[in-house]
C-alpha cells in the first residue's frame, strides 16, 4: 500500500486522528469507573494507527517509525503487567495491595450508585495502562509486518 489516498482523505485524517487518540486514552484511563478498560481502549488506539496507514501509505513510515521500538513497547507492557502481579506476593499472587490503603490509588469508594472516584481501586489503573500499551503496540506491529512483508514480495 505504497500509494496514498486523495487530498480530501488526507486532510480529514489529519483532523480526526487526534480525536480518536484522545477517546482511546479516555477509555483506557477510566477503566475502573465506566465500561471499558485496557483491551477496549488499546483496540481503539490501534484503529487510529490503521487509519493513518490506510490514508498515508507505508511510504510515510519509512523515516519515522523504528520497528524495534514498537516491539520493545509491547514487551515493556507485558513485563509491567507481570511486575504488577508480583507486587502483592506477600499474601498471594495478583493480590491488590494498593486498594483502600491510602497510598497512590488507594481511596475508598462509597457503596451503592455514586459518581465515580478517580483515586480508587489500587493496581487496576496501572494494569489498565500496561495492557493498553501491549494491545496498541501488538496490533501496530502486526499491521506493519503484514503490510511491509507482502509489499516486498510484490516488488520482486
Amino acid at each position, binding site marked *: 500500500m505504497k500509494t496514498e489516498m486523495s487530498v480530501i482523505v488526507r486532510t480529514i485524517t489529519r483532523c480526526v486522528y487526534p480525536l480518536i487518540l484522545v477517546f482511546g486514552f479516555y477509555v483506557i484511563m477510566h*477503566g475502573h469507573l*465506566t465500561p471499558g*478498560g485496557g483491551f477496549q481502549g488499546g483496540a481503539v488506539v490501534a484503529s487510529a494507527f490503521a487509519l493513518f496507514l490506510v490514508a498515508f501509505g507505508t511510504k510515510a513510515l519509512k523515516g519515522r517509525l523504528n520497528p524495534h521500538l514498537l516491539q520493545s513497547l509491547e514487551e515493556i507492557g507485558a513485563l509491567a503487567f507481570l511486575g504488577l502481579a508480583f507486587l502483592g506476593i506477600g499474601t498471594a499472587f495478583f493480590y491488590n495491595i494498593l486498594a483502600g490503603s491510602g497510598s497512590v490509588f488507594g481511596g475508598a469508594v462509597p457503596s451503592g450508585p455514586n459518581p465515580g472516584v478517580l483515586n480508587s*481501586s489500587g493496581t487496576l489503573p496501572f494494569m489498565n495502562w500496561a495492557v493498553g500499551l501491549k494491545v496498541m503496540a501488538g496490533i501496530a506491529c502486526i499491521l506493519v509486518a503484514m503490510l511491509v512483508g507482502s509489499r516486498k514480495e510484490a516488488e520482486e
Partner: protein
Amino acid sequence: MRRALLTAAFLLVAAFLLFAAAEMRPFGEPAVSAMDDYFIDNAQIDVAANNVVTAVVFDYRGFDTLGEATVLFAAVVGILAMFRRTREDER
C-alpha cells in the same frame, strides 16, 4: 460419495446444535449465581472499584488475563517471525 458423507455429517451436527439450544433453560434465569452475587456485593469493598467487570478481569480472575496476554504476545512474535527478511532475500 465423499460429498454425500460430508453433507450428512454437517446436517447431523446442525440438528444437534439447534435441538440443544432450544432445550436450554429459559433466557433470563441463570442456573447458579452464588459466585457472581458475591462479586457484585463485595467488589466495592475488596477492590474499591465501581466497574465490577474490570474488577473481575484484573483482580478476582487475573490469572486468566495473564494467559490472554501471553497468547497475544505469542501471536505477535509468530507473525514477526514469518515476515522476516533473511540475507538470501536481499541479495
